[in-house]
């Protein structure tokens, strides 16, 4: 794997930032001290990946060289209140937590009535807890992921969600991750840990937004989701930041036997967004759904990299990613499925469909199946096309104007992904937001 760095001030400025941060704040989380020190060393060695790196071929982080990003730190204060963030709640009953510039903002959060058996709290406060220590920074491997290393080295807060064994929480727990700038470019690490213990059920929604001066930011999110035996996690990521945001997101799921996870990654904001989803089906009888949606326009770059790793027999995974790319925007989909030697009777499916709305829009789709077991059912397909002109004419021939006809077709194409979301309230809230985004 390439270890080349950006040959410019950008990599250096991040390296300096890491050095500087550690000088001032040490390894901020005492219980994770040695992990953070290791991560700092890894980042300083690897630096920011360039397009020479195989996994970053189509997505250039050169934009990060344009500014000097100050790394947020424990002495930064939160300024948002409940009323500032009220409109971010996806549903009326959502349990809303706010992370402002990487920091847990308790006073803006709005979740009085947490169900019994659910713990939600600031990562800074909970990092020393035994259950947190057992998992935090243990799943998202940073040894060859420089941005995970950067996040790990700089993390000083974030959020922890724990569902005790047998706890069922149908109410969505929403983490509103807000970038709130005041004229200064920021490097913001965001850290999320979700633990669903045996037989627990949780519903987590991670939403991303921009506030304030909308200055350039690097939002670097690392989520670790640990799903114990027979537990179920429904997860939604909604990325709706402004176009000055460079958003990198590493989401690692570790699944124990008989567990279930369903994740939808809906990306329609941000200037450059890179999602790395890494799902490890680590024991028998796991079921995993991964759905994703890109809606890109202007000069947005939206990149979904997914890895579904079937390690053990009798598991099922199903992946549906769709993209609508307009303007000069660029979409990337890279879907890897590994079926390891022991993973007999695996069923793994993947589908990627894209529509380009303009001549300058582009899409790079690359499915990759690596199968080492012999008794498996796997399929994948990737298509990229234009809007269906026949369908558009049919709509127009019934009196529907060209603009609304296009919107109707795009909405139908994209809604297909959101329709897969199991929770009815979240589904309809997100369909509304999709409509608004397509009409923007």
């Amino acid at each position, binding site marked *: 794997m390439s270890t080349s760095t950006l040959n410019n001030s950008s990599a250096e400025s991040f390296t300096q930032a890491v050095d500087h941060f550690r000088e001032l704040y040490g390894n901020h989380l005492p219980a994770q001290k040695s992990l953070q020190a290791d991560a700092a060393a890894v980042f300083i060695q690897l630096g920011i990946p360039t397009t020479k790196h195989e996994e970053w071929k189509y997505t250039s982080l050169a934009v990060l060289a344009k500014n000097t990003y100050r790394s947020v730190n424990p002495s930064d204060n939160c300024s948002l209140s409940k009323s500032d963030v009220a409109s971010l709640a996806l549903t009326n009953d959502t349990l809303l937590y706010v992370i402002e510039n990487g920091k847990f903002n308790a006073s803006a959060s709005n979740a009085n009535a947490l169900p019994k058996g659910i713990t939600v709290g600031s990562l800074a406060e909970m990092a020393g807890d035994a259950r947190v220590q057992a998992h935090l920074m243990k799943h998202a491997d940073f040894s060859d992921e420089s941005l995970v290393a950067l996040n790990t080295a700089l993390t000083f807060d974030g959020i922890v969600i724990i569902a005790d064994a047998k706890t069922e929480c149908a109410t969505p727990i929403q983490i509103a991750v807000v970038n709130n700038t005041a004229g200064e470019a920021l490097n913001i690490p965001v850290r999320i840990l979700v633990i669903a213990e045996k037989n627990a059920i949780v519903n987590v929604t991670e939403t991303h937004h921009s506030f304030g001066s909308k200055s350039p930011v690097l939002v670097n999110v690392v989520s670790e989701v640990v799903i114990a035996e027979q537990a179920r996690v429904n997860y939604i990521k909604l990325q709706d930041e402004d176009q000055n945001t460079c958003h990198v997101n590493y989401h690692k799921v570790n699944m124990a036997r008989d567990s279930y996870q369903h994740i939808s990654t809906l990306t329609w904001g941000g200037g450059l967004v890179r999602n790395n989803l890494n799902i490890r089906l680590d024991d028998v009888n796991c079921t995993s759904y991964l759905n994703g949606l890109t809606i890109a326009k202007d000069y947005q770059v939206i990149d979904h990299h997914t890895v579904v790793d079937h390690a053990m027999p009798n598991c099922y995974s199903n992946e549906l990613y769709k993209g609508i790319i307009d303007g000069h925007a660029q979409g990337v989909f890279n879907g890897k499925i590994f079926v390891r030697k022991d993973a007999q009777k695996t069923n793994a499916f993947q589908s990627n469909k894209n529509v380009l709305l303009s001549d300058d829009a582009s899409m790079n789709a690359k499915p990759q199946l690596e199968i080492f077991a012999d008794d498996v059912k796997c399929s994948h397909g990737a298509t990229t096309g234009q809007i269906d002109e026949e*369908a558009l004419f049919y*709509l127009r021939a019934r*009196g*529907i104007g060209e603009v609304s006809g296009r919107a109707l077709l795009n909405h139908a194409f994209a809604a297909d992904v959101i329709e897969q979301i199991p929770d009815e309230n979240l589904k309809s809230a997100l369909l509304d937001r999709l409509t608004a985004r397509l009409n923007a």
Partner: protein
Amino acid sequence: MLSIKDLVASVEEKQILKGLNFEVKPGEVHAIMGPNGSGKSTLASVLAGREEYEVNSGSVTFNGEDLLEMSPEDRARAGIFLAFQYPVEIPGVSNANFLKTAVNEVRKSKGLEALDSKQFLKVMQEKMKLVEMDKTMTQRSVNEGFSGGEKKRNEIFQMAMLEPSLAILDETDSGLDIDALRIVSNGVNALRDGKRSFIVITHYQRLLDYIVPDHVHVLYKGRIVKSGPKELALELEEKGYDWIKEEVDSSVNA
């Protein structure tokens, strides 16, 4: 109502309509017959405003307005409806949602208030009865997975919803079973009100037993080469097109 003069139209550089003249008055039903490839669907497409079809010369006016200057949606809003020979499948758009959007856009163009969900549902239920359409069909995506006959019936259902002043039915009878043919024809007849006009493109005289035309025309090589009363359809059924082709081809050669 509709007046076509010396219409010449081509697709992909190939001339299909070669000087076509045709007149439809309010309330009239015209049947257009003719051999495969003679240009019937091309005529329908040109009238509906399909962009691949280029009009080289001639004129089409609809209620005094230049139809050829209008966008497809404006033609639909002005009252032209084309029942497609091959209806298109639109995954993800429910029939009901599609029709509600269409009906309300047409209403808007006429300065009428949009129908709310309740009002729309009422109208829809009425029209569903007209074509004996199953409720589940309205919830399904437009034409997706519909059988050939269901697609045709759906076209007539849409026509009933949109209440056009001129409906062009392009082989709506093909693929229909005997019962569906009767249902579709009844639907059409129910909409005959003395003002609404129809152009019925068909290969079979059978349909014209149900939907009795005022005039029958034969389209051949891009022109209307013969017109007559409804009995012309019977004659064609019996004798085929050879005698007409001979007539036309010999006069061209002469």
